[in-house]
């Protein structure tokens, strides 16, 4: 990263304030990890339940730094040619066709095969130069001159082979391309990996990263988040809503409502011009933050109790 980025990461408080400005409320823990990651030049491995803002963290970092965000979405079967680079086969073929006459010209006068090969050699490996290289996210991140934020999303979905392949990239910030050589980053990109814990990441990968676990936020933090994202919501209603969601998370649900779903719900309530929670309103809008029929039934059972408690918190 460039020296002018240093100013953005001068202290933990600066980071917290700066991220709040771009719409990401981060806990001291998150800010500390960001600070360390920047100054130690290490990738961050972010884990936590779905919808707590893991991906959002990378987007906010890019926003905050004013650097491009380069995203690599992992899935089963992802391989080098999709993550790192690929030769532009089509372009290579097209060029050889177009240049056929030119090639004939070059070859004219060569008596035997040996001398024509000699002549060809003068032109080096033009067809395997960077002009014909299609950079994929990882290579692109290394090539950015002004630095970049690289997001490797849901790295747990990728295969173990790919994880091993990431190691070189993450520890030395360089990749090897057999035809060209090793490409090294002038400016180390700021790397964020996210994982939903569908499988345990390897020790080697963890060793190279700082580890950050983002849990569901506590009530205070969640209120701050809602305030940033849905400023139109009244203070009282925000308190009620956050209290309701926090209680709902304690129930035995298949999928607990995430922060992004809380935000959605807040937006819905603004659209409905609600001024306070009441059981009927909640029942009608349950499906905004609960995505399973069983969960909706479970919450409906406790609806009156939860709503009453939520209203009492104000």
């Amino acid at each position: 990263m460039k020296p002018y980025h240093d100013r953005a990461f001068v202290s933990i408080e600066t980071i917290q304030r700066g991220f709040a400005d771009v719409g990401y409320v981060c806990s001291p823990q998150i800010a500390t990890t960001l600070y360390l990651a920047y100054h130690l030049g290490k990738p961050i491995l972010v884990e936590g339940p779905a919808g707590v803002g893991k991906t959002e963290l990378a987007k906010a970092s890019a926003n905050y730094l004013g650097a491009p965000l380069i995203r690599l979405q992992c899935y089963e079967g992802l391989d080098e040619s999709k993550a790192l680079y690929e030769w532009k086969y089509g372009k290579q073929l097209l060029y050889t066709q177009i240049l056929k006459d030119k090639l004939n010209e070059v070859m004219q006068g060569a008596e035997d095969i040996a001398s024509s090969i000699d002549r060809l050699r003068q032109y080096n490996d033009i067809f395997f130069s960077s002009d014909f290289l299609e950079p994929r996210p990882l290579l692109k991140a290394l090539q950015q001159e002004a630095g970049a934020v690289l997001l490797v999303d849901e790295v747990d979905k990728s295969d173990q082979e790919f994880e091993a392949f990431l190691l070189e990239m993450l520890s030395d910030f360089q990749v090897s391309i057999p035809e060209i050589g090793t490409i090294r980053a002038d400016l180390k990109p700021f790397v964020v990996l996210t994982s939903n814990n569908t499988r345990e990441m390897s020790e080697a990968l963890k060793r190279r990263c700082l580890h950050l676990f983002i849990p569901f936020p506590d009530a205070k933090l969640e209120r701050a988040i809602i305030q940033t994202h849905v400023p139109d919501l009244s203070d009282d209603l925000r308190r009620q809503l956050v209290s309701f969601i926090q209680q709902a998370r304690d129930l035995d649900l298949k999928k607990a409502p995430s922060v992004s779903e809380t935000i959605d719900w807040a937006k819905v309530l603004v659209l409905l011009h609600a001024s306070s929670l009441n059981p009927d309103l909640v029942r009608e809008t349950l499906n905004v933050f609960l995505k399973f029929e069983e969960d909706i039934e479970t919450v409906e059972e406790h609806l009156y109790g939860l709503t009453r408690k939520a209203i009492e918190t104000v």
Partner: protein
Amino acid sequence: MTEQVLQDLITALRRSGVRISLSESIDAVSAAKLIGYGDRTTLRDSLAATLAKSQPEKEIFNTCFDLFFSLHDFPDGEGTDGLLCGTAIDSPLTQMVLSGDRAGLSMAMHEAGEHVEIRGIRFFTQKSLYIQKVMKHMGIEGLDGDMRRFQREKTLTSQQKAEALRQARAELYERVRDFVERQYRLFAHFATEEMILRYLRDARLSHIERQDFHRIHTLVRKMVKRLNDVHSRRKKRAKRGSLDFKKTLRDNLGYQGLLFEQRWRAERVDRPDILALCDVSRSVQAVARFMLLFLYSLNEAVAKIRSFIFCSNLVEVSHIFQEHPVEEALERLQNGRNLSIQLGRTDYGQAFRDFKEKWLDLVTNKTTVLILGDARSNYGNPETGILKLLHERSKRVMWLNPEPPTFWGTGDSEMKRYLPYCFLVRECSTVNHLDRIVDFLLKTR
């Protein structure tokens, strides 16, 4: 100095089961340098980011950190300044105690801990030894000497001093005990647990006390996790020398159809298909319990299992495992409720006959038949013919016997007669045996 402190913390974490590599400890040191020791929470967050790399590890880390950096060794109390008339012959400890120099005492205690290498503490029986050592290094003998001297002098002030010292000594003892206790919890608690687990690995399952069951469950969970990690990837076996022509054509389109890169055929290796037949008579019950725990804890992706239990007759129990979580299912099997099993005399012949009658269709050339039992059939007809049939129909028959090989074939044991029709017969009486067998099962699909 500070690096030594971090090193100690890392040692404590490692002992508690957090895996920390060298590069991670270097990261921790540079992080601590960057952050400084000023703010406790920030320091904790940054060390957590560099050292603890999963949710359970974070919890261990927080406990260790709090134990390690607890600073309230000596609670605020009043110093007995009035009694300190600066007699030069008093030992340094006496002076510190009487003047209520808490910081000094705390430092002396930590220094003493350092000196007697309290990090080496392993067993709770060593606690009193270490308390004595620490007290001695802090200079308790000087204090005792002073106390005796004051008691001998008959003046009022010295009597008061002696009394104050006696109280202070008792208090000091308490503090040192707390200190040692904390160090023990930091450095040895998990190590002891680890040792018990290591012992349990090789203990005979039939002899294990009920109170250790939960430990065994932890142990099995760990082993199963390892097996899952190793075996959960879909395996492929290359069919050597056979070209996958379609794939080769497709992948070489980029070369204008010139076949630069060949693609070879591979076949997917199937998940093991297991039929488990468990004897649940008293002699084998414990082992059966843990083997079923093992098999059913394995990821669905790793193996397909159907299980049967028998004593006098044979019943299928797979549905119980589908309907209930593993541990509850095991309880249900144990007391045999809602199962039509007769817990009378063990009869292997009857069990085999039942199996042949109702479930023989399940056995295909991909099935592994796993039989767990001591083969003690109360002199009934052993029905070796049915086992032979199973042997011929299935991929293989594996027999696990909780008795050591020297007992096979003695008394009513029919093991020797069953032996020829088994692909593999193993003694299986400890968790370690089970682990090895399941590993073998998954390895040789």
